[in-house]
């Protein structure tokens, strides 16, 4: 048994958001403890597309500013690579790629429209089915697994603590504040508690009697054997997200999700399904020159979404020493900025670099508990509708 010593800040969840917040706090000298039920970054945080191009977000500019510095700041490799190439196989796909680029332009970033020839020069395995594309002189991607481990190690290097294989079982509330976090390995006192528990974040909101609608879903990715490195690995399109890794593997996901329930604190199962075949087809369409390459692995992951798909990063009104953070299924790329924002909320009472009012919890105060059925995400009466997905009681 570890010494059940609390900390100034106890973070529930060793995913990418909690790890980044903990790291930013630790490097500012704050006494921080992360409680993780399994291994750090083990679920969707460590297995995702690795994209870091979210300039539409309130965290977007800070995301862009921080990523090129992350290797140095952490002292561990993230495999961050700059730039993104969007390949379009149809006019509709081109319109979407342009829209992404133009959002960046609004924020002061540069981009270029590519014709087919330019696409094929940049991406030799692209095909004649490409009608054009975009080259973003911003954005990028990194290796999720290496990055989450980097956050965890860097946090420890700054004196922060991580307890793995430690499941939170309850919260002790006294005088309108959470005073301790109860776990399978004892009780940990806390001045501030950050809940960043991914698909289980909603379970904590219920414990704290706040309305936080969250729908968990399962998604899938595939990985090929290594190919020779392209000039830029950040190539996507045709309804796929992903990248070529620095080893050369093509790692891509996309397509239909399956809404599920995550009823307790156990790690949800995350199997793959025959969808891996459909992913293979879209990848071969996007990069016909790689159609003969072999798929050697796949992953599944469980992520959570709010009704509007936007994050909730907010301090509760009561208990007022709790900060809730869910990134609504888009957390990895934004993690450097989100962790920094959370650390500022702890230390300064608010995020200093961005206005987070658009992602406040209050927007869901009146969301009914059957919101998934009302939004048409799941059928009323379906087996998963038997469980609630947060919202007002």
């Amino acid at each position, binding site marked *: 048994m570890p010494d059940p010593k609390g900390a100034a800040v106890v973070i529930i969840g060793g995913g990418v958001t909690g790890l980044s917040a903990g790291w930013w706090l630790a490097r500012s000298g704050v006494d921080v403890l992360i409680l993780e039920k399994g291994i750090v970054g083990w679920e969707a945080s460590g297995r995702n597309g690795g994209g870091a191009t979210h300039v539409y977000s309130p965290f977007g500019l800070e995301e862009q500013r921080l990523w090129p510095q992350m290797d140095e700041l952490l002292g561990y490799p993230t495999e961050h690579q700059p730039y993104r190439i969007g390949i379009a196989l149809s006019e*509709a796909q081109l319109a979407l790629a342009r829209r992404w680029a133009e959002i960046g332009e609004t924020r002061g970033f540069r981009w270029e429209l590519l014709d087919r020839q330019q696409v094929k020069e940049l991406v030799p395995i692209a095909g004649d089915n490409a009608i054009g594309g975009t080259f973003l002189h911003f954005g990028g991607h990194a290796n999720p697994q290496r990055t989450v481990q980097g956050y965890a190690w860097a946090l420890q290097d700054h004196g922060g603590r991580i307890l793995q294989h430690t499941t939170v079982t309850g919260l002790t509330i006294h005088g309108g504040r959470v005073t301790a976090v109860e776990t399978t390995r004892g009780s940990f006192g806390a001045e501030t508690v950050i809940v960043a528990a991914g698909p289980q974040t909603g379970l904590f909101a219920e414990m704290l009697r706040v309305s936080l609608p969250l729908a968990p879903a399962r998604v899938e990715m595939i990985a090929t*054997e290594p190919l020779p490195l392209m000039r830029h690995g950040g190539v996507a399109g045709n309804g796929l997200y992903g990248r070529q890794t620095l080893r050369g593997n093509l790692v891509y996901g996309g397509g239909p999700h399956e809404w599920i329930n995550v009823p307790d604190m156990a790690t949800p199962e995350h199997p793959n399904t025959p969808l891996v075949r459909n992913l293979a087809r879209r990848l071969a369409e996007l990069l016909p020159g790689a159609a*003969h390459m072999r798929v050697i*692995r796949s992953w599944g992951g469980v992520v959570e979404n709010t009704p509007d798909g936007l994050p909730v990063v907010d301090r509760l009104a009561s208990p007022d020493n709790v900060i809730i953070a869910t990134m609504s299924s888009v957390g990895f790329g934004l993690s450097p900025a989100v962790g920094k924002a959370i650390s500022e909320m702890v230390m300064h009472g608010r995020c200093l670099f961005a206005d987070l009012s658009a992602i406040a919890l209050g927007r869901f105060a009146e969301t009914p508990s059957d919101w998934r059925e009302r939004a048409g995400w799941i059928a009323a009466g379906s087996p998963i509708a038997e469980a609630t997905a947060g919202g007002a009681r």
Partner: protein
Amino acid sequence: MTLDPRSIADKAPRPERHVPVVVVGAGEAGVAAAVAAARGGAQVLLVDEHPVDNDMMAMDVPLYFGQRMQESVRNRALMMERVVEANPGLAEAHEAGVDVQLGTYVWGAFVNGPSVRELPGPMLGLADDRRSWLVGYDRLIVAAGARDVALGFPGWERAGAMGAAGAHALLTRYRALASKRMLILGSGSLALATAALALEHGIDVAGVVEVGDAVHGEIGAFPTLHGVPVYLSHTVKEARGKVGEVESVVLVQVDAALEPVVDTEREIACDTICWALGLVPNVELLHLVGARLLFASSRGGWVPQLSDVMQTTAAGVFAVGDCAGVRGDRAMAREQGRVAGIAAAQSLGANLSPLPARRRTESDGPAVHAYWQQWLQSLVHVGGWEVNVCQCEEVTRRELVEVKPPRYLKWDSPQMNARSLETILGDGPVNQDQIKRLTRAGMGPCQSRRCREQVGLLLAQSAGTTIDRIPLPSFRPPLRPLPLNVLWPADEPPAMREQWVSWFGIPTQFSPHWEAGMAIAEPTAQTPLILSDE
């Protein structure tokens, strides 16, 4: 209101056929199971991946072929003939009415569970060299056999370093082993049987090498081995040869502490060095269907928990033969198959009498992992820590236990240098999947077939524990490395093509935060990009 059109709800995969009983693997146990189930009145599909194509063999999938295939393996029709000729059971199965499909890989098994509810039923992913397809089943009998254990030494990447299961397959099923002189590692029954088989096929056996001080098997049971040199208390120092080939092997004697004895090196000419230290049950499919696995060193490692009719803990799934625990006993494998086949047919309503005989008491072989650890220790003492543990990703033993990031990152920092397996152990028990992802050991195209055991053994040893105490590393589909243009479906439900988006399709998810209320509908095959103020 219509259901979320971007979800899987109306796009669930449809198997192209449904068969009540599917048997995977046409070895002794699989054939017996298929025949018993068919005679019990069940409709049965028996699939076997042999003959596998040359490209797959060149990756040491599914067995450790070590590049010792003759050119003839490229002739698929010839190989199909030989595989059929070598296995009289196939004809018996055919006569019993079993649908036999050879040259067919099973690359996945998919069942509903807490996180998957949309499948119309349990199904397998199958493929040949041209396409993949799905087959639904009611009962699955896994008879997937076993694979080789390999432990590295300098030069083990060379063509000619192979495994006993690969050698047996090339000799007996394909009749296409390109070897003239073979040195055999290990002296248990597998090693001695391999030596005898090689001699029978006109291959010179250069010797049998045993790290321990006595022969493990009953050498008297193999009269043809008389005169074959046996090197006791020896291990491998190196395999040598011209570019990429094994032409000789340097052996060295070891003492009781498994340390090399000075001036005892001897170079033995041979074109093949064959690991025959034991076999590992192929439990990949069983893992995918969620069958409970237990560690039993006397049966090769992780094996399924079984009922007395060979049923696993996964609904409707049976395991028979070596994948249920390596015993190397053909009669027992047939008996297991027969019991499972009858039980499967009965559970589908066949009115069979008598009830299947309960399995007879099965004796286990010797525990193998301590033996493998002994070999590995000797190889580390003699070959050092700079030997690749993973060939595909070129990860050395040192890089594995120091948890180094891959060399191609050219990363160097004091923080990283201070990290090691030891610091990771300070945070929790050793987890092979975590170490694999950090070092990339086991992440290559052979899908860790060549390195799985030695990675586990090295990590266990370095962590001061034993391999049974660390979790089984995961298996994910596809269980065979299949090209994108083989794995892809020729046909998809229309909704799959029409409604495909990259991420959820929540219109406000990627809208610029400064344009409150702006929605962006990701375009699909049928719809253009839509921007709107909600």
